[in-house]
């Protein structure tokens, strides 16, 4: 009887260890890599988009809990502005992809946030660096 109970407890312990290790794997999410890591903020801003043909911005991210992709869409309809075009006052989980939609472009151009091509001042994201040619993604 003691042996059976021991084996049962051992089985439960192993199952728990397995479950924990599996949940660790799922927590990595679809976009997580070692290279790109989102620090977290409550606001994003894309500048100067209305001076050219950008018509919308999409942020795709993973919610960190059940691997669901959350998509934030913001259409830009006003022309002539040169400063703030997108403000998202929500706390975003890590590793978002930012996608920019422009006129006459069937696909979105996306790039991960903490790419060295972008400047992050702790609050706003400014596209001020040349994009990495091989990291621009079309989805």
């Amino acid at each position, binding site marked *: 009887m003691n042996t059976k109970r021991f084996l049962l407890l051992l089985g439960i312990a192993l199952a728990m260890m397995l479950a924990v290790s599996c949940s660790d794997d799922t927590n990595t999410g679809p976009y997580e890599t070692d290279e790109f890591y989102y620090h977290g903020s409550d606001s994003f801003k894309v500048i100067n*988009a209305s001076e*050219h043909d950008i018509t919308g911005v999409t942020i795709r991210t993973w919610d960190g809990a059940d691997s669901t992709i959350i998509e934030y869409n913001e259409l830009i309809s006003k022309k002539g502005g040169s400063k703030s075009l997108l403000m998202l006052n929500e706390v975003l989980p890590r590793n978002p992809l930012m996608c920019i939609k422009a006129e006459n472009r069937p696909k979105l151009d996306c790039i991960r946030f903490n790419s060295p091509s972008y400047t992050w001042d702790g609050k706003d994201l400014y*596209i001020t*660096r*040349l*994009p990495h*040619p*091989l990291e*621009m993604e079309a989805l």
Partner: protein
Amino acid sequence: MKKVLLFVTVFIAFASAQGPYFDVGFGFGEIKTRIDGKDYVKEANILLANNVNDHEGIEFSIKTGYGPFGLGIGPLYVVADLGLIEHSVFNNLYNDDEVIFTTYMFGPGVILYPISFIQIGLSAGLSVATVNMAKENIEIESDLGYMYSASVAYDFGANLEPSFRELLGNHSFLFGFKYSGSRNPTYSGKTIKMETPSFFIKYAYIHRKKAVSLSK
């Protein structure tokens, strides 16, 4: 064995009228660099609100070869072509932010003179592209791809007065137009494609013995 000896004998006899060909030069032109078919400068300008510019592309090449061989269409030289094209894209907002695309090319080619002073060059071969991001100190090398180039040039040394021509001997200068391109796959699955129409100037050493006799 007999065939080999015959070939060597014919080649030596044939080659006695031939000599070396060499040219080296550079050109400038508007390079288009496309990543998966998209113009990088145009894409970057969308992201950076038209704050992106590119320098005029530079093209450099060396050709060494042998000839001329007479094939009834004018003197023909067989050459090995080694070259590069370079395209710098820079950010107007930051001086140190620059992306440099360079493609190194090598392959066989032919030089043809359909008219005594007009040179046509054709080459095709392999290429390797690199992407250098100066600010981040990143250099990426592509996988092996292919390249091609076609050029037409005016040969200043071929149309001189006899006294000048005697003075120059086989030395000459070329001025012409060249179109070259390359296509290289990368580790990320994206393809770097570069196209360069350019005007070039070259120094050339051209063994003309056969060519002169043919043109007369």
